[in-house]
């Protein structure tokens, strides 16, 4: 490695460590790779005593956004390093973590029904509301095992170069005559069955309990036109960036980023979107323990960080106090605003808590077959 470049890398590393972006172990690993441990030893960085917290989110742009909105400041204030794993805390993935006998995850940014289901089965820590200020979110959002981290939404996004008209409804999504091109939908099923039923003419009020057979049949209809089911946010972004699909059911957060990255080529709106909170939850027997993780969750419920995340990625704040702090130009991006909530329908968390595991199995087998 070239000497000056090595120096650059080291400075970057030291800078990252000072800002608490990486923990001691990764730092030493990387510094060791650069064969410059002596310099690392002289750099005078104070390492925190606590074990670093591993936060698991959905990857891609969310990793950097979480750092800037939440974890950097938290590390600065508490000295606790935070690492972000973007591999996606699906229900099955968390179960496999617990079953491994050696979970390496601490805090997960999971679906509320996942926290609920797994909490009931004793896999999640009960949240400690003496450390987390319960009043920071609406009452319905603070439950035993999960507290709402932000709101997000499964929206219709489309490529404006492929057709003139604006698709508004899920029936439009299914209409490949008027809106030609390939589609993409969420691999782990949330909002997909609802979309199918709405396209088939079911009224929003009659959605739940979901008519699974009817939804699957409607999905089969669209099957030849579905290019891929995306499993991670970044994958959905790439599909639009490459022009592989003309329309997709994707997260509002990624739609906002896409709109920016493509300079307006990708359009989206909140009409008929499926809105739901995400939740913070902590794994049982997690390596970092209860104390620091609860403190982190409390920190992440502060309105400032939530507004910052709205700016960066478009996640709607779960703390009502944030509403007053949202800059005017961002109000229309917030999926949790009064006006936008009226355009969307809510995902039924209870239904998912009761049915997700078994229906997902059928869904994956059916879509993969």
């Amino acid at each position, binding site marked *: 490695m070239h000497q000056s470049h090595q120096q650059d890398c080291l400075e970057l590393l030291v800078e990252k460590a000072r800002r608490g972006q990486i923990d001691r172990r990764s730092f030493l690993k990387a510094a060791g790779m650069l064969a410059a441990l002596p310099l690392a030893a002289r750099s005078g960085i104070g390492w925190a005593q606590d074990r670093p917290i591993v936060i698991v989110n959905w990857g891609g742009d969310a990793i950097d956004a979480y750092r800037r909105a939440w974890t950097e400041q938290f590390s600065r204030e508490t000295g606790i390093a935070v690492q972000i794993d973007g591999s996606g805390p699906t229900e*099955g993935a968390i179960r*496999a973590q617990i079953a491994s006998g050696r979970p390496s995850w601490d805090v997960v940014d999971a679906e509320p029904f996942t926290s609920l289901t797994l909490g009931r089965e004793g896999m999640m820590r009960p949240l400690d509301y003496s450390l987390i200020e319960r009043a920071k979110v609406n009452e319905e959002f603070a439950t035993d095992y999960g507290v709402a981290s932000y709101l997000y939404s499964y929206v219709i996004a489309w490529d404006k170069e492929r057709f003139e008209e604006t698709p508004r409804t899920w029936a439009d999504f299914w209409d490949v005559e008027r809106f030609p091109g390939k589609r993409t939908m969420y691999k782990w099923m949330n909002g997909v069955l609802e979309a199918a039923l709405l396209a088939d003419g079911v009224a929003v009020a009659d959605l739940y309990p979901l008519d699974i057979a009817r939804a699957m049949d409607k999905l089969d209809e669209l099957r030849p036109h579905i*290019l*891929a089911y995306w499993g991670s946010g970044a994958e959905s972004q790439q599909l639009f960036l490459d022009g*592989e699909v003309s329309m997709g059911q994707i997260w509002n957060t990624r739609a906002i980023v896409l709109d920016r990255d493509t300079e307006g080529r990708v359009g989206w709106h909140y009409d008929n979107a499926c809105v739901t909170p995400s939740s913070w939850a902590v794994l049982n027997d997690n390596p970092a323990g209860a104390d620091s993780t609860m403190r982190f969750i409390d920190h992440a419920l502060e309105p400032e960080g939530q507004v910052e995340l709205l700016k960066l990625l478009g996640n709607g704040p779960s703390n009502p106090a944030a509403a007053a702090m949202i800059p005017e130009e961002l109000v229309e991006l917030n999926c949790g605003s009064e006006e936008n909530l009226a355009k969307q329908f809510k995902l039924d968390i209870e239904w998912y808590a009761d049915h997700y595991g078994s229906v997902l199995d059928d869904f*994956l087998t059916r879509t993969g*077959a």
Partner: protein
Amino acid sequence: MTRMSERWQHRLLLWPLPAVLLLCYVLPFAGIAVWSVTLPEPGMANYARLATDGAIHAVLWRTLYLCATVGVLALLLAFLMAYCWLYSSPGWQRWVELCVFLPFWISVLVRTFGWLIALRSNGLVNGWLEALGVIDSPLALTRNSLGVVIAMVHFMVPFAFFPLVSSMRQIDDRVLLAARGLGASRLRVFVSIFLPQTLPGLLGAFIMVFVFCLGFFVIPAILGGGQTVMAAEYVFLQMFQTYNWGIGAAICMLMLVLVSGLVWILLRFSRVERLVG
């Protein structure tokens, strides 16, 4: 030194590897077998579902069908390469070797990634085809079974190449020359003399490729777009997404039975030592 200690010396050399394998591989194997009849509850429910669930059948049939397709195609290409390697000048041989060895030593992830880039709608292949005027709009080459087959064939060609070369090497090329000298056309020599002699090698290479393909899940997972799920990826999903370890374990047991059968055929009908030699 006494006889006894000689025997112990021998045991000390012989047993470490089998012992480690028995303890850390065969024993856990029994654990998987137990999972398949105890998760989520004791009984044969997983095998019953394996026997009746149409959707699982679809996954399994697709796996067999794709593996067979990949086997045939990879064999064709490897045969061609082996033939041209064996019967050409050293200069040619070097190029053939480079084109076989380079992909062989490169990680499957890198190759899969390469195909992802090459086969995208606005990727290299579609770009070339459009530039040549062959197509007007991009073909769907990836995120479907076509992409999976292309990448798997690419992965398997070197694996089929080596056993084919070693079986072709045993053919006496003076016979081929003699046939040509007696007036047989190249095609005739190839079909009547060359091909029959390579059949055992072909069978062996086919089974090898087929068995390798069965357990593959990196390529389908990345290039399949979630709609070309093969058995191995299905097991992965059952383990880490839907948490049906029982059914995953049952599919593993089924795969094992199938592979054992194929390996038995391999040992029975083609001389395996010629393949590895």
